[in-house]
Structure formats: structure tokens, C-alpha cells
């Protein structure tokens, strides 16, 4: 499932995938895979991304159940 919240939060800070990747010490392709929903990051990476984007885990990674 695509992570549009992450993509929006990243775009909100005007960061490219490459920028976010460098700040979180991962490759650009890993950030791309997370946003596309092709890879589920570990909790450590989730926390690193949240800290970089100034968001909480819920705001970026909690999946809302469809009504």
C-alpha cells in the first residue's frame, strides 16, 4: 500500500527522496520503495524518518482502516 502521507510530508518540507535518504542514512531507492509501498521499514528507520520530517509515527505510518 502506497505511503502517501510520507510523500506529502516530504514534499511539505521541500525535500527530494535523495535528500531524505541522505538524512536517514539509507539509499534513495529505499525511500522510493517505502513510498510506493514495496518495502516495510524497520521501526528504527521509521523513527529516523519521523524525526527528520518532524512527524509522529502515527502521522506517517499508521494505516487507517477503510470504513
Amino acid at each position: 500500500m502506497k505511503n502517501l502521507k510520507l510523500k506529502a510530508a516530504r514534499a511539505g518540507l521541500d525535500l527530494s527522496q535523495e535528500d531524505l535518504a541522505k538524512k536517514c542514512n539509507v539509499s534513495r531507492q529505499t525511500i522510493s520503495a517505502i513510498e510506493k509501498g514495496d518495502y516495510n521499514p524497520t521501526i528504527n528507520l521509521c523513527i529516523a524518518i519521523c524525526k527528520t520530517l518532524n512527524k509522529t509515527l502515527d502521522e506517517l505510518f499508521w494505516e487507517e482502516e477503510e470504513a
Partner: protein
Amino acid sequence: MNARSAGLAIGLFVGLIICVVFFKYWNKDGKLKTQYDEKQEIVRGRAYKYAFWTLVVYEAVMCILSGFSFNLHADMFIMHFSGIIIAALVHASYSVWNDAYMGLNTNSKRFTVCMILIGLVNLLSGIAAIASGSLVIDGVLQAPFTNLLCAFIFIVIGVEIGVKDLIDKKGGEE
């Protein structure tokens, strides 16, 4: 220890030193160890698994062929080395296509230059062996064939990295 064994030992030692020099050159931080992120580590784990089974199957096939006294017209050293090259190619190809070949601290330009250099050196050595007639002796492929195998693998990996880069650039950031 005869001259051939001594030459092999010295060659291996020099090869090891050259590997250390190359690793320190193409890693941005000058470290020997290449760093990979968590996703890359997972992908590389799978790549190692596929390479391992490729080598196991290869060696099993060699054993069976040997059991049937099948003459492969190649030195035993080449038969085993070929298996290692094929397994290494499987690992590298899987890693390249799943974005796990280049590490976080790899300088891709320096790495590509090194790949081309190593491929060329091996290709030239192989061509020299063909020219001197030492590649095939009495209808049996000799050790210099390993240079051609090495040139092949480096060229294939280099092409794969180049093609993957082009595909990534065309795709752009999503």
C-alpha cells in the same frame, strides 16, 4: 614449493593487496567495508542465497558429468573457477536489479572506472594468452581462460549497472 606454487601464492597475495586498495579508493569514506542500508542487506541476503544454490547445482552437475567420464576439455581449476564466476554473476545481477549493489558509501564514478580497468586488464591478458597459444593446450582449456571469464563478468556487471542507471534516470523520482 615449486615455482608454479610460489607464483600462485605471490599472485594471490598481490591480488589481495590490490583488492584492499580498490575498496579504499571507491568507497567515499576510504573505508574497507561498504555500507548498505537495511533494505539492501535483505536483498543481498537473498542474492547470496541464490548464488549459493547456483554454485551447489553447478558443482553437482560437474560431479555427475565427472561420474559419467564426460570430458569437458578444461583444466580442473577452470571448472571450479567457472562455478564461482557464475555464482558471483548471479549475486551481482540480482543485487544490481534490486538496487543493492552500490553501497551508501560507494563513489559510483570511481567504482565504474575500476570495473572498466579490471575488465580491460583481464581481457588484454586473455587476448595475450590466445595470441601466444597458451589458452588451449592439447585440446584442453588452460588457466588463462579465467582472465576471459573475469573480463566477461566485469563487462556484464558494468553493462547491467549502466542500463539500470538509465532506467532509473528515465523513471525519475516518483
